[in-house]
């Protein structure tokens, strides 16, 4: 418990660091909200017109003052207003988050339910044809970019079967579970396949390590069935690196899967941040990155806690 509190105490410091970096980085890039809105037509503005637009976009003050205003707003839960959406930043983020969260969970579910069994299967048939087959499949899965998988899936479905899920909008699960799943399954499979490949490889090598450990030999010599040796004795320990990998991946996914969202036209967090950067919607970029960083830290903490649960030898307090 102390450990959790200690970790939580570090959160604000990291978040402040992140916020400063994002704040400065996005302003260092040439171009601003005015050129984003007007493009080359911005050249037709008189200096007075430019000043009024700068006030409108809230970029008329020097950076430190802009930052201070934004920073003090944070304490009252005010992340600012998004100029593109005309809504509070937090509202925009929370509207997009359910999709991103669902996509992350679904693709993790697909990846783990393919990857872990496949890895274990390969490890128990080490260097036999079945192992080789799984390894080749994993290699292909890992090296095929998601946009290729995505576009191929879309092409096969639309040209071959004449069907395609509704694109462009998101139907929340609680509104229409079937419609929701039909929209989410392709993106989840696309993301899940690539990740399943990594999970397969990691769980295979972890399993091989564990299977050669003394305690597994002990278990076998005590007469435990092969099934019980693998699933009860070996697997929990072999899962530690899988949890690490999944934790990092899940953290990334909570920041949105830009390419997959782009291909399947999903209004998720990733595309929102991308558009916000292109539009120089400063408040939205800052708020979203902060939100994503917070998610990442929470997931990381949960992963560390999961280690302890999986392997009693790991003591978090002592670290």
């Amino acid at each position, binding site marked *: 418990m102390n450990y959790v509190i200690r970790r939580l105490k570090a959160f604000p410091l990291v978040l402040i660091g992140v916020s400063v970096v994002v704040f400065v980085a996005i302003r260092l890039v040439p171009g601003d909200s005015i050129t984003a809105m007007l*493009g080359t037509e911005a050249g037709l503005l008189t200096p007075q017109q430019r000043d009024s637009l700068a006030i409108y976009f809230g970029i008329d003050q020097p950076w430190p003052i802009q930052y201070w205003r934004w920073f003090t707003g944070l304490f009252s839960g005010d992340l600012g207003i998004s100029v593109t959406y005309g809504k509070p930043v937090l509202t925009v983020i929370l509207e997009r988050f359910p999709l991103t969260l669902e996509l992350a969970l679904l693709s993790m579910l697909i990846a783990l339910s393919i990857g872990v069994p496949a890895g274990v*299967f390969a490890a128990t048939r080490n260097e036999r044809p079945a192992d080789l087959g799984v390894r080749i499949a994993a290699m292909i899965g890992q090296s095929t970019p998601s946009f290729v998988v995505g576009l191929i899936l879309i092409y096969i*479905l*639309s040209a071959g079967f004449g069907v*395609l899920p509704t694109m*462009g909008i998101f139907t929340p699960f609680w509104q229409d579970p079937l419609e929701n799943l039909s929209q989410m399954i392709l993106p989840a499979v696309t993301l899940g396949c690539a990740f399943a490949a990594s999970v397969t490889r990691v769980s295979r090598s972890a399993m091989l390590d564990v299977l050669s450990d003394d305690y597994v030999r002990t278990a076998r010599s005590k007469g435990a069935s092969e099934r019980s040796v693998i699933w009860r004795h070996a697997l929990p320990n072999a899962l530690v690196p899988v949890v690490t990998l999944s934790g990092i991946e899940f953290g990334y996914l909570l920041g949105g899967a830009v390419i997959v969202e782009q291909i399947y036209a999903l209004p998720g967090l990733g595309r929102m941040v991308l558009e916000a950067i292109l539009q120089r919607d400063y408040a939205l970029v800052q708020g979203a990155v902060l939100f994503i960083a917070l998610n990442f830290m929470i997931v990381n903490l949960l992963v560390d806690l999961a280690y302890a649960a999986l392997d009693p030898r790991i003591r978090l307090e002592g670290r």
Partner: protein
Amino acid sequence: MTSRFKYFLGLTTAAMIGLSAISQAGAATLRMAWAQDATGLDPHKQTAFSSLRLLELIYEPLVRLDADLKIIPGVATSWEFSDDGKQLTFKLDPKAKFQNGAAVTSADVKASFERILDEKTGAANRANYLSIESIEAPDAGTVVFKLKQPDAPILTAMTDTNSSIVPATEIAAGTIGTKAIGSGPFKLEKWDPNSKEVLVANKEWAGGPTGVDGIEISVLPDETAILAAMRTGQVDFALLNDPLIATLVPNEPKLQLNRAPLLAYHVLQLNPARKPMNELAVRQAISCAVDRQAVLDTASLGEGRVTGPLTMPFFASDPNSLFCYKQDVEKAKKLMADAGFADGFTATVIAATGEPPTAAAEAQVLQSQLAEIGVKLDIKMMELNVYVDTWLKGDFDMAVALNGGRPDPYTMYNRYWTKNGNLQKVSNFADDSLDALLLQGRAETDPEKRKAIFADFDKQLAEKAPWIWLYTGFGYTAQQKNVQGFVPMPTGSLVSLGKVTIQ
């Protein structure tokens, strides 16, 4: 375990194939898709192509353009210049109504133009209205613009969606840009940026009735996905940007591709403020070394036509009559040698990533063509906004650009080639005779005389070669064949969606 694995695979496949089939056409709602969403709702401020395509369905200007770029009624039914060309009078359509039920009156027109002229608004279009001295509203149906000097192109400028008429009450309330209330064919019911727009027919539209009950626009950022959605019948009508995707549409038996030659032009901008582009001979050498048709064929699959500076059919010259429009490498080499650059030089060319989609390919073709005369180009690709910033500062040796075209030559080019043009910093080229021709063309009201003035301008600009004009492309829309009545426009406008029907 293996059997469980198989079971799972089976489940996934079944789920994928059993994806809910597409709900077939809700009788009269047009389902539309585009890759780029609008960025805002203020018709006086939003200049992005994607924003204008949405706003022109909601708002109306005083006058409009037809597909031949002739001026036709909008909110106004008739218009007249006074004999001295210093007064422009509009009669408004008595049937014109805003979507809040109020009639469109001269007070709204006056308030709208005063808002555009007010520097606090930040309307880029203001630059086209500097000749306005005052706006009078003698009665509810009449508006008079008093001008400081004769200004023929002002009428064409008024056809722009950026000059739309908005309710005076909404201006006073400060809600322009948050609420969209126009007098156009559709009302905006819902806008979820970068996801979806829902438009419903405006039953009181003066130009009505509309052919469909509404339009639902989905934002599908990947154009391959747009094509796939059209293939399955999920989308009736789409705006396409990439020639590589557009040219695939005719392969689909149920789909139709509409092409409209656009006014916007692809160009290699030279920076005459920098050495050695300050030398006329060097610029002309570059012009002679470029094979414009090859650029068009390679970068854009031949989708378009080679153009001179003026792109509107009424004013455009035959490209073959312009300086060095037939590639002549020998002449180019001689010009380089005369200017003292027989060994060539190195220059950096900037281009925006994906904007237009052909930008990188154009830069590469130009790079290989100019290498023949010893000009070594370093290509620098930039994110669009970074590019715009760099471009506006004139901070480049050369730039590959797709610049917007206007129906009137003066409005299109005064920003670059008059001495006090707003974009002198970008063109870096001041020339007495180009300046004089533009000012002459602005004051002249006789169409044939204007045509002669601008033909001279076109010829001189190509010969002085501050930029190397390349080609104009097509504006693409794709539609199911049961969609009827869409008229492609050289401005890229989708305004005829107001009359489209679904059979």
